[in-house]
């Protein structure tokens, strides 16, 4: 059973929204009935993610890529106006003379480091790259164990999804700063026990029909990877080939999406975890049949929730359009807040944000007319 969080009416929630055309921050009032817009920030730039440091509750990082210009990272402080550019944004090492090195096309995700390492951040990029900052995101260095050691070994299995290959998920074990998980689309899930110096593949049990070998060690296509902070041995992933769960130290993923309704399937991009209950998660199924429309199956959008670790799923569509609604929700655009009951949010490629104040039971649109939404993160703060 979940532990109890502060009641919804006693807390304030902010949404950090990255879109194809800039960042938008929405600050909710008590009970989140009204939302105040702060933005747009960097209008016209693709903003893959805006992240707040949960360790200090102050540092904001934003990943931006303008159409004409190279990618960069901006930093700010909560409740401060203005952004400062990172002095050394993520960039691959320069190739040796005559070589053809890689260049970062865009920064895709941020992950704060361990609680014992204030100021440490990780960033994942497209094409797939892993970077680390030790000064709150001002200067970034490549994690050589991935960029220079693992990547060359797996490069022939790293295919480009439409925005290029991406390292989209970085998880730090809350018990151990040196224990990391990453996920690549495509490439698979990998684990490190030494802060990224060395890696091992963690893809057993995951299907990959697009690979010639049925038991490939890597090359899989996780779309999103999550670890529960209160049960760090519990991992979930929404994969190109279904929804999976892994309870370490086991290393064979179980396809919990098999218990989804057959007519809906278990294909999707995003998943969100309950902040206090490791058995509760939400997914947003998409149509992965035929030519992969990647829209709500049948034009009837719904969130599916499991409260038993994926053994069973419940459809949650009250308030969502009953038909003719072809939502697409990107991998970083579904999230939960920390209130009680939990608020669940998703942003669509059509520029809408939908909210459920009661753990998915009822939905209503809270924002419309944004550019295509790439990411939504909920920040829950005491009033």
């Amino acid at each position: 059973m979940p532990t109890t969080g502060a009641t919804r009416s006693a807390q304030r929630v902010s949404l950090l929204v990255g879109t194809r055309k800039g960042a938008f921050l929405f600050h909710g009032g008590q009970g989140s009935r009204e939302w105040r817009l702060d933005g747009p920030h960097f209008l016209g730039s693709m903003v893959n993610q805006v992240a707040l440091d949960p360790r200090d509750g102050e540092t904001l990082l934003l990943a931006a890529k303008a159409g004409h210009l190279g990618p960069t990272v901006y930093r700010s402080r909560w409740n401060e106006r203005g952004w400062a550019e990172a002095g050394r944004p993520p960039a691959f090492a320069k190739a040796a003379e005559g070589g053809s090195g890689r260049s970062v096309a865009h920064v895709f995700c941020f992950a704060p480091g361990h609680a014992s390492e204030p100021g440490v951040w990780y960033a994942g990029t497209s094409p797939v790259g892993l970077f680390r900052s030790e000064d709150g995101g001002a200067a970034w260095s490549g994690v050589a164990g991935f960029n220079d050691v693992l990547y060359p070994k797996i490069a022939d299995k790293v295919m480009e999804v439409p925005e290029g290959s991406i390292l989209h998920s970085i998880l730090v074990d809350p018990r151990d700063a040196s224990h990391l998980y990453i996920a690549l689309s495509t490439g698979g899930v990998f684990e490190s026990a030494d802060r990224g110096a060395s890696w091992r593949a963690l893809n057993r049990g995951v299907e990959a029909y697009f690979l010639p070998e049925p038991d490939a060690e890597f090359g899989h296509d996780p779309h999103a990877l999550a670890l529960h902070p209160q049960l760090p041995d519990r991992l979930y992933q929404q994969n190109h080939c279904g929804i999976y769960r892994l309870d370490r130290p086991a290393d064979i993923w179980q396809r919990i999406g098999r218990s989804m309704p057959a007519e809906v399937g278990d294909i999707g991009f995003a998943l969100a975890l309950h902040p206090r209950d490791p058995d509760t998660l939400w997914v947003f199924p998409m149509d992965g049949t035929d030519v992969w429309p990647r829209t709500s199956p049948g034009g009837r959008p719904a969130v599916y929730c499991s409260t038993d670790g994926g053994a069973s799923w419940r459809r949650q569509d009250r308030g969502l359009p009953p038909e003719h609604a072809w939502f697409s929700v990107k991998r970083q655009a579904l999230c939960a807040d920390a209130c009680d009951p939990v608020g669940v949010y998703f942003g669509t490629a059509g520029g809408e944000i939908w909210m459920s104040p009661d753990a998915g039971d009822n939905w209503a649109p809270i924002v419309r007319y944004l550019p295509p939404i790439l990411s939504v993160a909920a920040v829950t703060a005491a009033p």
Partner: protein
Amino acid sequence: MIVVIPGPLHSYTQGRSRTECEAASLAGLLDVLDARYPGMRFRMVDEQERIRPHIRIYADGVPVTSLAARLDAPREVLIVAALSGG
């Protein structure tokens, strides 16, 4: 030489569209600009020293495509943020 800076880079120049520089090569010019407007160079040139796909540079109307290219005292260097899609 006068360097004409396109709109997408005006956040670095506090809105200025022109600045005066002296440099003997494109690499040298970009170094001067980056010292004056920190961060600007990386937005135009990637970590492999390749001019980014949607940046074009002309010296007195002649395309300059290599950082090693010499600049023979042009009157004007024009930096263009070229078409980048919708």
